[in-house]
């Protein structure tokens, strides 16, 4: 009996399962799944975009990092709008950094609309050993002149500037209903800033952070000084390959935005040579940190 006839006769493909006659269980499982964790642990990793969820429990974050072999993470707490609030968040990050100086790197979060306080806070945080800014949020587009004094300070300090980016339809085509504030940075805003300040170390946050990642990558293609972090909950197959194809490996920085399984998985899934995978997981961001002498070897 041909398989098709059999299926029809038995009433169901699953009838066959129930009868046990044509179900194939793969004979042996040598632990490819185990070996995936071996693969995960093979690579040194530094996370360019992380967050500290509980300000008093950096140990919880370290536990999660350990599960997927992340050695160091740049972290921030982008919460609150007024100076007292952003100082409080940065204080929590500074405490965590000091508790785990070999594991946690600080990114300073400010609201640039409080211009004087924001600049003062950036000075304080960089002075206390943070690596740069992050995750700058939706108060103003990253190309807004209100950011310029802060960007100039970061250039002077060789400090990186990481900001939240989106590519919702409402940002790209304003006749669509708003799904993110109109002041959210889109990729073209990063390009504008990079044109004005080609020496700035700009990190475009999370290509997987929700939004049309193809549009993001295409917009950033011809802006060679901009780095892109790979974080965000989106883990579409082919996303990293597309970014590599158009931006090159050297501009991509591994990051999780606290999505640990998918953060690592999407880099493992990418069709990359081993040197390139290592560059994304570790080398590229470590080289950025090297500019300020905050790298690891």
């Amino acid at each position, binding site marked *: 009996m041909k*398989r*098709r006839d059999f*299926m*029809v006769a*038995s*009433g*169901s*493909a*699953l*009838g*066959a*399962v*129930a009868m046990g006659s*044509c*179900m*194939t*269980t*793969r004979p042996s*499982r040598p*632990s*490819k*799944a*185990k070996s*995936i964790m071996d693969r*995960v642990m093979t690579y040194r990793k530094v996370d360019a975009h992380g967050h500290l*969820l509980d300000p008093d429990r950096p140990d*919880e*974050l370290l*536990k*999660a990092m350990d*599960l*997927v072999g992340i050695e160091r993470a740049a972290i921030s707490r982008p919460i609150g709008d007024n100076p007292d609030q952003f100082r409080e968040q940065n204080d929590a990050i500074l405490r965590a950094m000091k508790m785990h100086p070999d594991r946690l790197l600080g990114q300073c979060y400010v609201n640039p609309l409080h211009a004087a306080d924001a600049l003062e806070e950036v000075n304080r945080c960089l002075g206390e050993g943070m690596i740069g800014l992050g995750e700058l949020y939706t108060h103003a587009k990253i190309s807004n002149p209100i950011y310029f004094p802060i960007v100039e300070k970061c250039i002077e300090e060789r400090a990186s500037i990481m900001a939240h980016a989106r*590519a*919702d*339809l409402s940002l790209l*085509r304003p006749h*669509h209903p708003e*799904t993110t504030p109109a002041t959210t940075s889109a990729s073209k805003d990063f390009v504008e800033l990079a044109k004005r300040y080609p020496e700035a170390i700009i990190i475009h946050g999370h290509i997987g952070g*929700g*939004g*049309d*990642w*193809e549009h993001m990558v295409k917009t950033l293609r011809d802006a060679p000084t901009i780095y892109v972090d790979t974080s965000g*909950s*989106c*883990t*579409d*197959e*082919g996303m990293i390959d597309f970014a590599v194809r158009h931006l090159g490996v050297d501009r991509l920085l591994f990051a999780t*935005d*606290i*999505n*640990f*399984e*998918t953060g*690592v*998985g*999407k880099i*493992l*899934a990418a069709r990359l040579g081993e040197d390139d995978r290592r560059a994304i997981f570790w080398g590229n961001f470590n080289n950025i940190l090297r500019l300020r002498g905050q790298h690891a070897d």
Partner: protein
Amino acid sequence: MRIDAHAYMGHWPFRPLRGNTCEALVRRLDENEIDRALVGNINGVFYKNPQWANEELFADCESFLDRLVPFAVLNPTYADWEYDLEICRKGFGMAGVRLYPQYHDYRILGDGCTEAVKRIRDAGMVVSFSSRLVDRRQRSWMDSAEDIPMKNILHVVRQVPDARYLILHAFTPDFANDDVVEAVDGVDIQFDMMYGTATQQIGPVLYDLPTGIAALGPERFSFGTATPFREYPSHVIRMELLESALADPKALAAVWGGNASRLLART
């Protein structure tokens, strides 16, 4: 046995997908040491008459029925769908029906959806809803489908508690919520675990998977990947981390495939 309860073949109109045939799916299962997958045809979401897609799926997976379990896509507001249901069940041996009210122009709470669920139940097939197909933040301007909130899916479940359900792209910030626990009590329902995490670091679209499993029971979650929309390794990593988060190895085996196997065995 390891079963991927959430896989596809077919085309997504807004982006090319790699490996979107049954043959490629089987290769992918091999690469990841997965025994079987439940597969539906994406094309059925977009054809006016989705039965074309079920015919395509059957033709494409016919040589892989030892590895792939086909699920139909049907639109219960389209003419003569009950006839197509019959063909899918008796002719093609399909195990379940994936319903897409958000793409097929009817409301999950109304427009006869509950009646359709009963009809699928009576055909002995699994009912599958999907909260979404892609993240709404990256949708095409032509893709206006809204996410289906879990509470709406659970509303249908309450009305037809004796159907069997597999919920794809299953997401709610809190599976331990009393409303969820109460709605699924005594119901044969499973959720894929693709938005869960075993790292305790939860976020806007990430819930704590061990907490969900503790609240609803390990029999409620199944390994599922949305391949080939999503890359595969992340899901396998999640299961590996879940292993250390769950005390009971039997619970892990249930999520890996025991649950999906049980759901299919009753078909």
